[in-house]
């Protein structure tokens, strides 16, 4: 596959760079280390080296143009790429990025994570990809394991060097040990003995570390004096690097042989620092999860809601015995009407009767929604979605049920289209099946209320002198105080309760009033 070369990040504070001059032209052959292009940023020019051999297939950003860090500036065709590969790659690019004009790039949102890559020079950090280069660490000049420093790893044969490296200030000579090339036996041995593979120069093909290398390294370590830095055991390489980077080894936890600090430990230490963790917090945080677009939207919406909409909450206990009886009867009749359907219909009816609830706060006024669009929150494998049953007004329960079921099925298959969860005017959130007794959901903007449905509870009910079992459910309503006041909200929730406690109206075909 051809590769893109991105505008390198020459500094933490660099946001964009200008192409001064291309030293190679399109179609020209390039070798690793050739100066490819000169890049200018605030009083500094960098002659940027090719980090892969191949052909400069296409220049994407011309001399004199300024683009954001991470923006692709050229496409390189690797030796193994065919003409077809290149054509396909360029075609795919063209369809993905319609006219990636420099101006657009400049204005685009902050560069993505991938764009934060430090520039990959010939001495680039380890690749993100499949085939890591052998540990490019400076070889330890002192106390180096026998056979390690002499067996200088050859450069990787193929050129898997990436245009994308992790967002990191971690120096390239502290590669991710998991990405070090090693045989399975070497890996197993290293794990068993706590050896950091990135400290070993491999003697296998393409610099792969072999079990014998690990053994030799361990022997050398035994023979070498245990270098102590203020009584902290540390491997020679790590000692040198800690010195160079001025890392206080007292604060680094060693996981190597005999509790020695290894490169891997220095890396973990720097990574923790980079995440802004204090020494106390090291080890407290694990991996960060990547946010999906949906999750990002949810975060945005919920924060906006809590910041802008003054929430207030009311709750009512509903006697669901009649509803339960009705549901049993419908079930016996073979009608697939569920609790969700009944509550949906009750909400639709109540919203129709309370147009002030089916409303939103918009700039400086309260605006009623025209349709009644009820969103039903659904958890799909840990992802919250709320498909919307549109235009509920005047429609019978069976029609609403069929539509809701279709949407929920679609949601579970993760096949909802954006229109399916757009334009809700009210939301129902039901955690009853999860045993929640009581809760209040957050309003989804621009809606002004959300109904929270909890689990059905069995309660003792006094009837005459008898105690019998009754069935109750808590219904919570969160409201935007800009749109609704307590009294109106209570009336609305009361209407829902009445509908659920005398449910015959829910079955009327269409709006019967």
């Amino acid at each position, binding site marked *: 596959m051809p590769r893109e070369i991105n505008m390198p990040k*020459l500094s933490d504070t*660099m946001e964009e760079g200008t192409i001064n001059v291309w030293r190679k032209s399109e179609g020209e052959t390039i070798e690793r280390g050739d100066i490819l292009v000169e890049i200018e940023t605030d009083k500094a020019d960098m002659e940027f080296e090719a980090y892969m051999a191949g052909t400069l297939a296409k220049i994407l950003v011309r001399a004199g143009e300024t683009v954001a860090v991470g923006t692709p500036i050229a496409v390189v065709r690797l030796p193994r790429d065919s003409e077809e590969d290149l054509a396909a790659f360029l075609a795919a690019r063209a369809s993905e990025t319609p006219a990636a004009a420099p101006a657009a790039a400049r204005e685009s949102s902050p560069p993505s994570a991938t764009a934060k890559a430090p520039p990959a*020079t010939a001495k680039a950090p380890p690749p993100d990809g499949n085939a890591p280069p052998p540990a490019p660490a400076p070889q330890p000049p002192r106390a180096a394991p026998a056979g390690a420093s002499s067996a200088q790893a050859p450069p990787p044969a193929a050129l898997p060097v990436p245009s994308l490296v992790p967002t990191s200030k971690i120096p390239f000579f502290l590669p991710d040990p998991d990405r070090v090339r090693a045989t399975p036996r070497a890996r197993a041995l290293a794990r068993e003995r706590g050896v950091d593979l990135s400290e070993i120069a491999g003697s296998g093909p393409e610099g792969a570390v072999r079990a014998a290398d690990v053994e030799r390294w361990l022997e050398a370590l035994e023979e070498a004096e245990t270098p102590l830095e203020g009584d902290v055991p540390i491997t020679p390489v790590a000692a040198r690097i800690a010195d*160079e980077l001025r890392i206080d080894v007292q604060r680094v936890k060693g996981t190597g042989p005999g509790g020695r600090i290894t490169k891997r430990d220095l890396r973990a230490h720097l990574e923790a620092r980079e995440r802004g963790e204090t020494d106390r917090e090291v080890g407290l945080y694990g991996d960060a999860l990547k946010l999906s677009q949906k999750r990002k939207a949810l975060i945005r919406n919920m924060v906006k809601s809590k910041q802008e909409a003054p929430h207030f909450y009311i709750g009512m206990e509903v006697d669901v015995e009649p509803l339960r009886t009705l549901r049993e009867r419908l079930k016996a009749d073979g009608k697939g009407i569920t609790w969700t359907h009944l509550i949906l219909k009750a909400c639709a009816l109540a919203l129709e009767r309370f147009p002030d609830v089916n409303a939103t706060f918009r700039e400086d006024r309260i605006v009623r929604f025209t349709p009644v669009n009820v969103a039903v929150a659904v958890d799909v494998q840990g992802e919250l979605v709320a498909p919307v049953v549109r235009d509920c007004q005047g429609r019978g329960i069976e029609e609403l049920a069929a539509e809701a079921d279709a949407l929920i099925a679609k949601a579970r298959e993760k096949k909802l289209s954006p229109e399916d969860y757009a334009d809700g005017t009210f939301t129902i959130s039901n955690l009853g099946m999860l045993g929640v007794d009581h809760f209040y959901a957050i309003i989804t903007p621009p809606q002004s209320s959300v109904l929270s449905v909890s689990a059905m509870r069995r309660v003792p009910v006094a009837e005459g002198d008898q105690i019998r079992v009754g069935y109750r459910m808590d219904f919570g309503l969160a409201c935007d105080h800009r749109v609704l006041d307590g009294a109106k909200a209570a009336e609305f929730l009361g209407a829902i309760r009445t509908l659920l406690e005398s449910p015959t109206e829910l079955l009327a075909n269409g709006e019967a009033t």
Partner: protein
Amino acid sequence: MEWLGCVPYTEALELQAKRVEARRSGACGDALLLLEHPPVVTLGRSARPEHLLRSRQELSARGVEVHEVARGGDVTWHGPGQLVGYLILDLAARGQPDVHAHLRRIEAILVDALRALGVPAGRRPPMTGVFVEPSQPPRKIASIGVGLRGWVTWHGFALNVACAPGAFADIVPCGLHGVAMTSVAEERGGRGDASALLAEARDGVADSARRQLAGPGAIG
């Protein structure tokens, strides 16, 4: 750390290129080359013709060379009484591949050296360079511009120590209108011998650089 004396601009450029290649191949360590140039006006890639205030013939008749050089930036002047420092550093090997940090470090070296010379100076963000205090209107005492080949740096700074008055009169330095150029001699009231002052500045900068660049690949 090397003192090269007075070196013509093009010769110094070639020397730098050689040292950069040597550093890249690992044949030598980091270096700071200190020198003076004969009078020369250099035009960076973004130099605008109007920032050169005299014709080239006129300048050349006065013994001032004019060079267009492959660097960013506008127009600048080098010449006697100005201490030029070229830093050949492998930023990656130093564990800090960050070009702006490098610029800030050069500024720090100079501010530190100027303090020792009795000239209070500081930065004026967002401008790059070193300015004397108090600086209203801004008076610039050192210009900075760097290049990188891979992560090996070259070029560096030009500190005005005891330049002839009017040395910058032929240009609009760095294209900065409204910024006056000053020198150590001027700030100290114009007394003293120019060559002694240059030697003092040279040693001050060398000391300061030694401190700032201590650690890995330290400059000896």
